[in-house]
C-alpha cells in the first residue's frame, strides 16, 4: 500500500513538472531549464517551512513565484535564440541553478541539530509533513488536489483563446506577429507560467522526499520534463499524465521484476514509441475518436 501511495506521489509531482514544460513547448520552444525552476521552488519552499516555520501552502506559493520571476528573466534573453541554441542556453541556465545550490550554504541551529541547505551535502531534514502529522495518504491527496487544479487550469487555458495564441506562436512566429500577437509577451508569459508550475512541483517534491540535493535537479530531470509532454502528445494536458504513468508507472515500476534489464528496455521503448506514435500517445486522432465517442453517447442520451 505504501508502495502504491509512493508511486502516486511520484507520478503527481512528475506530471506537474511535465506540465510546466508543456506550456513552454506549446510556443515551440524546447527548454532544458525546467529542472532549474523546479529546484528553485524546492529549495525556497523547504527553507521557508524548515527555517522560518511557515505553513506549506504559502511557502510553496512564494517558492513558485520566485521560480516564475526567474523564468521570466530567463525568458527575455531566451527570446533571441531558437532551436538548438535555446536548448543549450537553457541547459546552461539549468546547470547554473544546480551549481548555485551546490555552493549554497545557509544553516541555522534548530534544537540539537543544524538544519538548512549545506552545499554539496544537500538539504536534509525537511520534516514538515511528519512534524505536522501528515500521513502518506494525506500527502498523496494533497499532491493530487494540486495536480488536478493545475490540470483543470491548463485545460481551461488550452480551450480559451490564450491556448490558441500559444499554439499559433508555436506554429509560425511571423504569421502570429502579423495577426497582431505580441511575440515577446506571449513567449515570456509562457516561460513565467512554466516556471511557476515547475516551482510548485519543486515545493512538493522537497517536502515529500525530505532530503534534496543539487544532483536531483540535473539535466536528466530536465530531459524528463520535456520528454513527458512530447511523449504524451501536445494536443492536451491528459497526454502528459498518460506519459508519466507510462514511464514512471509502467516502465520504471512495472518492469521492476526484470531487474537491470528494465532500464535497458526503458530507452528502447521510448524509441519504439516515437516510431509508432510520432505525434505522441494522445495525438489528434485519439482526441477526435474519444470526442466522437462522447458526442454519440450524449446524442443517444438525448434521443
Amino acid at each position, binding site marked *: 500500500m505504501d508502495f502504491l501511495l509512493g508511486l502516486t506521489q511520484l507520478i503527481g509531482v512528475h506530471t506537474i513538472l511535465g506540465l510546466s514544460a508543456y506550456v513552454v513547448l506549446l510556443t515551440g520552444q524546447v527548454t532544458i531549464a525546467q529542472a532549474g525552476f523546479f529546484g528553485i521552488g524546492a529549495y525556497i519552499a523547504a527553507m521557508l517551512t524548515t527555517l522560518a516555520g511557515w505553513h506549506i501552502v504559502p511557502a510553496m506559493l512564494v517558492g513558485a513565484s520566485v521560480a516564475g520571476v526567474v523564468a521570466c528573466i530567463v525568458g527575455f534573453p531566451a527570446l533571441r535564440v531558437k532551436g538548438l541554441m535555446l536548448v543549450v542556453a537553457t541547459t546552461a541556465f539549468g546547470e547554473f541553478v544546480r551549481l548555485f545550490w551546490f555552493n549554497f550554504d545557509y544553516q541555522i541551529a534548530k534544537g540539537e541539530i543544524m538544519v538548512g541547505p549545506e552545499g554539496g551535502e544537500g538539504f536534509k531534514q525537511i520534516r514538515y509533513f511528519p512534524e505536522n502529522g501528515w500521513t502518506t495518504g494525506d500527502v498523496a491527496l494533497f499532491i493530487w488536489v494540486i495536480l488536478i487544479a493545475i490540470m483543470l487550469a491548463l485545460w481551461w487555458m488550452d480551450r480559451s483563446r490564450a491556448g490558441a495564441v500559444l499554439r499559433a506562436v508555436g506554429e509560425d512566429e511571423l504569421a502570429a*506577429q*502579423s495577426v*497582431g500577437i505580441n511575440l515577446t509577451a506571449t513567449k515570456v508569459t509562457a516561460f513565467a507560467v512554466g516556471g511557476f508550475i515547475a516551482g510548485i512541483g519543486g515545493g512538493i517534491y522537497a517536502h515529500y522526499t525530505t532530503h534534496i540535493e543539487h544532483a536531483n535537479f540535473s539535466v536528466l530531470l530536465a530531459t524528463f520534463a520535456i520528454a513527458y509532454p512530447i511523449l504524451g502528445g501536445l494536443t492536451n494536458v491528459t497526454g502528459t499524465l498518460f506519459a508519466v504513468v507510462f514511464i514512471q508507472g509502467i516502465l520504471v515500476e512495472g518492469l521492476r521484476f526484470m531487474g537491470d534489464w528494465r532500464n535497458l528496455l526503458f530507452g528502447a521503448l521510448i524509441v519504439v514509441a516515437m516510431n509508432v506514435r510520432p505525434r505522441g500517445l494522445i495525438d489528434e486522432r485519439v482526441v477526435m475518436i474519444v470526442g466522437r465517442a462522447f458526442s454519440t453517447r450524449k446524442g443517444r442520451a438525448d434521443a
Partner: protein
Amino acid sequence: MLELKVLSKHFGGVRAVDDLSLAVEKGQIFGLIGPNGSGKSTTVNLICGVFPVTSGRVLLDGKDITRAQPHQTLAAGIARTFQNIRLFGQLTVWQNLWVAQNGLEDRQRENFLRRWMSGNRRARESVEELLEFSGLADKRDALARNLAFGEQRRLELARALSAKPKLLLLDEPAAGMNLEEVGALDDRLRKIQDRGVTILLVEHVMDLVMGVTDRIAVLNFGKKIAEGTPAEIQDDPAVQEAYLGGAGGRRAAAAG
C-alpha cells in the same frame, strides 16, 4: 493613407528597395507590380516591420510607423497575407480566425484578461461573419493544414480581415489559382473595397491587376519606374521594356 518616403532596404550590397516613394489614397486598390526580384515582397515586409528599413520612412495616416514591430503595425491598422501561405496548420479554421481578433476596437473596449482568456461575444460574431464571407462556414472545425489550396488562400485573406484593418497588404493572392478562382478573388477584393478597406495588391496575374486596381506602380530592381492608371501603365514603353522584356513581351505577359 499610406505613404512611403524615399524608402530603401539594402541586403549587404544588394539594393532590394531603392529610394521608393509611393502614396496610396484611402479606398483605393493600389497595384504593385514588377518582374521577379524587383523588390515587391520586400516592400510589403518593410511596411509591416518584418525587416528593419535601411533609410526612409513609412507613414500611415500621417503617423510614422517605420520602426514598428509586426504586431504594432497590425494594431496601427495594417493587415497582410503571405506569398507562400502561412496559416496555423495545427489549429482549426475557426481558431485561425479567433486568434487573429486583435482589432483596435477590441483592444480599447475589452480588458486584457477577458480578451485573452475567452474572447468576447463580438469577437465570436466577427469570426462567424468572416467564415460566411469566405465560404468556409462548413469547414470551421477542419484543421487548416487539411484544407484545399484555394480554401487556404481564402482563410488567410479572412484571417487578415479579422483585425478590421484600414489597409490590407496582399502578397500575390492569386498565385497558383485557376481562372475561375481568380474571378472569384476579383469579386471578393471589390467587396472588401466596398467595406472601406484600402488594398495594396502585389501581383503577377495581369488579368487581375489590370481589372481590379485603381492605380498601379511598377518596380524594377527596387526602383519605381512608372506609376499611373492601369491603362496608362499598359501603354507605358518603359514598363514594356523592363517588365515584359521588349520584343518577346506579349508572350511573357500571356505566361503571366
